């Protein structure tokens, strides 16, 4: 590891990195690999700020390898393509999400589930196949194998579409996999943040009745009038929770704080499904009788495969679904992170990389 981040690759790059577990960001000079035969080089225009970026910047999961350049909701324009690249050309609007490589040989990869490949390489904080660290989208350019690049639909706004690359696929994938798509059925969305607000929009597009489950009563009017939810349940109100017991077919639990699953499970009908997509750092408590007594299940899901992510983008474009965002400049990122830690955002920050001074 004799080479520094600046010299290990031939293409100069600049981004903002966190260097220790205070998670404070500052300018960072590094480099990107040469555009290989299968690669697409992308000038980054926008990058969404995902709560995972915050967890990682502060080493809350204990796996951070500093310095870290986060960002896995990346949108930009193609500036160069390798000789084997047929799907993209210069000038195309494209996106990159949570993965940049996988083994392509295992059962998961063969089924289009690169996100479950035991050797998948994440967009940031992973070790790439050449032994160097991956750096994410809080930067000016990125080089990615064409298989892991998404085509951005024409009618999708670049800035508001960026968060779909993680938040969107994170809720879309389990909604399809666990069968939460039958019109008329009742979906509960626990947590109304980056993931939750997109889950409401996608749920409505599937024809579901959607109830937002939240601890914050003040989110109610927006949930209903702006996001289109049918109902709002304040989960800290025991009487309201009791009245809603056994009424939901499915629940997507987007809450990343540690919480008990007991009240949520009680909201499900017999055969109900609770899918957890948030990543709390401690285990959740499950009272087993809530599962056994009504044949309910708790499942997990982690982003989605490449084919499915493209399908999700096209679905959202068709239904005019994009995230509700607040644009920030790169030099405002530390303030944005502090506000995100307090859930003070409606509902995703997106860094306007193209218009930011990075140095």
């Amino acid at each position, binding site marked *: 590891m004799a080479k520094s981040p600046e010299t290990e690759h031939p293409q100069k790059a600049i981004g903002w990195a966190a260097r220790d577990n205070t998670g404070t960001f500052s300018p960072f000079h590094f480099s990107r690999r040469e555009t290989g035969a299968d690669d697409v080089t992308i000038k980054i225009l926008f990058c969404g700020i995902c709560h995972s970026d915050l967890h990682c910047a502060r080493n809350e999961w204990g796996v951070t390898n500093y310095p870290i350049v986060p960002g896995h909701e990346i949108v930009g324009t193609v500036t160069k393509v390798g000789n084997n690249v047929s799907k993209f050309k210069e000038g195309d609007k494209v996106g990159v999400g949570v993965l940049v490589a996988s083994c392509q040989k295992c059962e998961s990869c063969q089924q289009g589930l690169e996100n479950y490949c035991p050797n998948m390489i994440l967009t940031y904080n992973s070790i790439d196949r050449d032994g160097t660290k991956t750096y994410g989208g809080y930067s000016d350019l990125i080089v990615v194998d064409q298989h892991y690049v998404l085509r951005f639909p024409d009618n999708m706004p670049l800035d508001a579409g960026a968060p779909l690359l993680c938040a969107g696929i994170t809720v879309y994938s389990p909604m399809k996999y666990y069968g939460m798509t039958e019109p008329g059925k009742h979906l509960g969305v626990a947590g109304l943040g980056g993931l939750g607000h997109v889950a409401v929009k996608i749920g409505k597009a599937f024809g579901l009745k959607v109830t937002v489950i939240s601890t914050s009563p003040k989110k109610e009017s927006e949930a209903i009038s702006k996001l289109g939810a049918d109902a709002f349940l304040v989960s800290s109100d025991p009487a309201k929770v009791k009245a809603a017991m056994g009424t939901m077919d499915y629940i997507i639990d987007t809450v990343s704080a540690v919480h008990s699953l007991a009240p949520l499970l009680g909201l499900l009908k017999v055969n109900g499904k609770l899918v957890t997509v948030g990543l709390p750092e401690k285990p959740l*408590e499950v*009272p*087993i009788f809530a599962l056994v007594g009504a044949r309910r299940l*708790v499942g*997990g899901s982690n982003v989605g495969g490449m084919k499915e992510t493209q399908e999700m983008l096209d679905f959202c474009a068709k239904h005019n679904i994009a995230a509700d965002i607040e644009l920030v400049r790169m030099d405002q990122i530390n303030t944005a992170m502090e506000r995100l830690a307090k859930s003070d955002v409606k509902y995703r920050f997106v860094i306007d990389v193209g218009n930011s001074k990075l140095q």
Partner: protein
Amino acid sequence: MGQAPEQEHPKNAFGWAAKDTSGVLSPFHFSRRATGEKDVTFKVTHCGICHSDLHMIKNEWGNTIYPIVPGHEIVGVVTEVGSKVSKFKVGDKVGVGCMVGSCRSCDSCAIDLENYCPKVIMTYANKYHDGTITYGGYSDIMVADEHFVVRIPEGTPLDATAPLLCAGITVYSPLRFYGLDKPGMHVGVVGLGGLGHVAVKFAKAMGVKVTVISTSPSKKSEAIERLGADSFLVSRDQDEMQAAMGTMDGIIDTVSAVHPLMPLIGLLKSQGKLVLVGAPEKPLELPAFSLLMGRKIVGGSMIGGMKETQEMIDFAAKHNIRADIEVIPADYVNTALERLAKADVRYRFVIDVANTMKSTP
């Protein structure tokens, strides 16, 4: 509740009941209702002893009504049928499991899932439609609505079939519902007791490769040679568990004690399913990360509906699946329950009711 158990119904009945939380059973005279137009009355020949009986006689779940006559793995021979009964006749071999009534009109009942009916009536210690308390199969006769009676096919032994009425359906239902029944799949069975040993047999009959997961290395040779399991994993052995990670399509977890789920979730392949059929009385910890990384599921299941219970009995008859039992006389029942509490049985006690449960004049 003015009438004594002996007088509230017209038919005399005799059984063994626990009268208080000591859980000690003793002879008990009570009565059964007259055979209603949809009822089937049968002479009980055998009744299996389920671990739930043990929990209930000691009021461990807090809902026991004393005196309690347990027993929900009941088999016998029909002696009388009501005028509107179409499925059974005198002389038929029949069984009754965990339920004797439900609302018959809710969403669950409408799809043959009476076991999930919010108003389900359990075979013992529950209030029946007529307001009286139900008494179970540690007794000489049973009267039940024909909807909740299953036929035991000719040629199947009554005694070794009795435990299937609870243990059998409890593991058969989730093997089918969660799709863990496809030939070539690999399924783990945690716990080798009444439920576990039957799970091994059903899964093998479905063409599934089975690994028994247990804390007791001493159960290994029986699991493989006698029950037909393909392999055996000692859950306390870190190396064995590590080597088996990511190898199972599903796991049926029959253990009712509190235990960690994370090692079991680790044994699952991507998209694998852990199904709990035991219900520990404290919540268990679920590490969300292990579910997400691999899109895995933890689900529950509780017995099965009546249609499925009959299907299970017929499947067992076709594949010669029966429980491994120790038949005991009625007056051994307290000792049997003490041994059951120490898991000292291979693998289900069955009371020989017809020959040994007689009221002394």
